[in-house]
Each structure stands twice: as structure tokens, then as C-alpha cells.
């Protein structure tokens, strides 16, 4: 038991309520290892603290919460089991999920966006082994480029806003009318971010970017905010 036992004993309530700073909590837990009296007091009062969340008015969670959770869980379970997950879903189906009932006008709009991206501002730089393709973006003051190698590519973005906690950027590869999920990433305080696209893109039409829940999605949940047309 340390000489500060009285101080620690006074902090039992704050500890159980989560009201200590990280450093104070670590120090308190260090004291608990040696102090049976404080351990007993924590266990004696813990049931009261544990019941506090049960006083909360129950509200309905958004239905999308379960859906997005199960998408991540099932994808990760499939990947872990070695069975290929349902990686390729027809683009029309993904857009249907994304846009609900208004499929046809939305599809037409998406086609126009892609056509514009294909027609304007796409620069190709570099030598035979590597080329750099400039991206089209929809958010103001953002830009990006894709360095394409033989069997992978690096997407670099600039000026991208920091996302709220729990949200990440996710890359996608469009190929044969399908959109395939690629890794997620975050951007730094300077708005820069980089993500590897570990694919041979020789038969891909585009690399896309969207904002998704942490852990990534199996299908885009918004229209692309960046498009690299290949």
C-alpha cells in the first residue's frame, strides 16, 4: 500500500464513474494492485456504477447501424475463413443500394460524371513501368493522383477534409461494370493521405474514393468524391 492511500480511497467514486484522467486512472489502478482495502471498496461500489447506463431512456438505433456492422463482420469472417467474400457486385446493384428507388436517373447521372471524368483533365505522366493519372474530385480544393505500376498502384490525395471519428476514406476499383472494395485510410492534419491499391489495374476502368464507416464497406455508401479514370 502506498503512502497516498487516503488520496486514492477518495478517488474510488471518480474511478468508477470514468472521471479520472488517463494518468490518474493508471496511477489508481497501480495502487489497486497493492491495496486490498481500495480493491474491496471498488468492488463494493461497482454494482451501483454498472447500473447507471440502465437508467437511460431507450431510443431506437438507426437501422443502418446493424446493416453496416454486419457487412464488415461477414466480410472479415469470410476473409479469415479463406473463402473469397462476395467482392464483386454489379455496379447497378451497388448503386441501387446506394440510391434506393431512384435508380435510373441516378445511373444516368453517374454515367455523365464518368463520361466527364474520361473526357477532361486526365493527364498521363511517367515512363513505361509507372504512369501517373490525375484524379477528378467533387469536393472544393481537393486533388489526387494515382501512380500506376504493373501490379499495384498508389493513390495520393491532397486537401481532403479530416473526417469525424468513426469515418474513413475508402478506395474502390471499377472493373467490368463492378466496383470492388479496396483498403481504407485516413488523411493527416495537412489533408494529405496515401493508400496502396494492391491490384493489377490493366483491365480496370477507374479508381474511386468515398467516405465510409471505420472498417470499410462492401459497397460505396455515397457517390465517389474522387475518380481516377484509367
Amino acid at each position, binding site marked *: 500500500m502506498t503512502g497516498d492511500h487516503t488520496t486514492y480511497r477518495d478517488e474510488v467514486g471518480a474511478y468508477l464513474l470514468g472521471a479520472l484522467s488517463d494518468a490518474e486512472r493508471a496511477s489508481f489502478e497501480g495502487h489497486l494492485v497493492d491495496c486490498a482495502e481500495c480493491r474491496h471498496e471498488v468492488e463494493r461500489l461497482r454494482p451501483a456504477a454498472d447500473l447507471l447506463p440502465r437508467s437511460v431512456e431507450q431510443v431506437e438505433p438507426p437501422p443502418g447501424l446493424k446493416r453496416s456492422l454486419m457487412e464488415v463482420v*461477414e466480410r472479415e469472417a469470410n476473409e479469415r475463413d479463406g473463402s473469397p467474400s462476395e467482392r464483386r457486385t454489379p455496379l447497378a446493384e451497388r448503386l441501387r443500394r446506394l440510391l434506393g428507388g431512384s435508380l435510373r436517373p441516378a445511373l444516368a447521372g453517374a454515367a455523365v460524371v464518368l463520361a466527364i471524368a474520361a473526357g477532361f483533365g486526365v493527364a498521363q505522366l511517367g515512363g513505361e513501368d509507372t504512369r501517373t493519372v490525375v484524379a477528378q474530385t467533387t469536393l472544393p480544393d481537393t486533388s489526387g493522383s494515382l501512380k500506376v505500376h504493373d501490379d499495384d498502384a498508389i493513390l495520393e490525395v491532397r486537401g481532403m477534409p479530416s473526417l469525424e471519428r468513426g*469515418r474513413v476514406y475508402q478506395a474502390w476499383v471499377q472493373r467490368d461494370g463492378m466496383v470492388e472494395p479496396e483498403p481504407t485510410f485516413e488523411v493527416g492534419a495537412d489533408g494529405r493521405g496515401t493508400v496502396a491499391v494492391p491490384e493489377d489495374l490493366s483491365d480496370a476502368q477507374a479508381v474511386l474514393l468515398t467516405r465510409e464507416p471505420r472498417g470499410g464497406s462492401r459497397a460505396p455508401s455515397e457517390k465517389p468524391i474522387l475518380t481516377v479514370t484509367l
Partner: protein
Amino acid sequence: MQLVGEGSPRAFELLYDRHGGAAFSLAYRMVGDRVMAEDISQEAFLSIWRSRMRYDASRGSVRTWVLGIVHNRTIDALRRGSVHERRREQFEGVEERHEARERTDVEAARREEARSVRTALDTLPAEQRRTIELAYFGGFSHSQIAELLDEPIGTIKGRMRLGLDKLRDQLADFAAGEFA
């Protein structure tokens, strides 16, 4: 629970079905924002899934354990973000409510349980109740609460401990029964 530890999506789905509502409700009560509460709930459940659960049955029910994870994540979010300032301003205000429908006996029982715990909280002296609520639901540290209420830190710590002690007596029946 064992099956969640073994990575069964169906077991995880069952866990979410049973405790997702309470988890979201707690996060929403703390941050007052449905989008943020959804993000926090998602992170908490994904951490459960990915860590293959280190649930210790000797420390209480599965629900207590899930809610503890959500509480910790929400406090992290509150202390990191700008939400705290907003919550500080809102704390006396009327909060938006999206009450759950009572569709099952389990949900009805939980609402009754919530009423009972709130009744127990109401029996505490006002300053103890307020201190506990600012800490547990507001995510404020003892020093922040001391500043907010213009009281010495020692007084705040004492109220937390005394308040929990009284609550423990009030809730002895609940604690013994541990709702699933």
C-alpha cells in the same frame, strides 16, 4: 458469447440484437447526437468483434460489459472532440428524444428497469446526483466538474463516492438480480 469469441457472425448478430439498442441509447444519452452515437456504437461493436471478446463472466452480465465498452469509447470521444463544449452549453437544455417503441416484453421490462434506476437516482441529494450525472453521462473529469460547479475537487470526489454508496443501497435488489 463463446461463439462470438470464435468469430461466428450469427453469434455476433445475436449479441447486437440483444444489446445494440441499449448501447446506442447510452451513447446517444451522452453525446446528444444520433450520427455520433451511431459511429461510437459501431466502433464499440467492431472492437468486440475484432478483439474476439475478452468477456469475463465473473464481472457481471454481458450487457454490463457491452455498456462498459460503449461508455469508455464515448468518454474518449467526448474528451477528444468539440462535443464537450456543446454539451456543456446544452446540459440544462431539453434533449431531443427518439423513443424506442415497446415491441417486446424484454423492451418493456428494460423501460421499467430504467424507470426504477431513475427513481433511485432521484432519491440522492441533488448535488450528488448532479455530480454523478456530469461524470458518468457528461464524460466530465472530476476537475472539470469542480470548475463547472465552482467547488473544491475534494468535495466533488466525496460526492461521487457518497452518491454511489447511497445508490448501491437503493439498488441492492437490482445488483443482486443482474438483468440479462
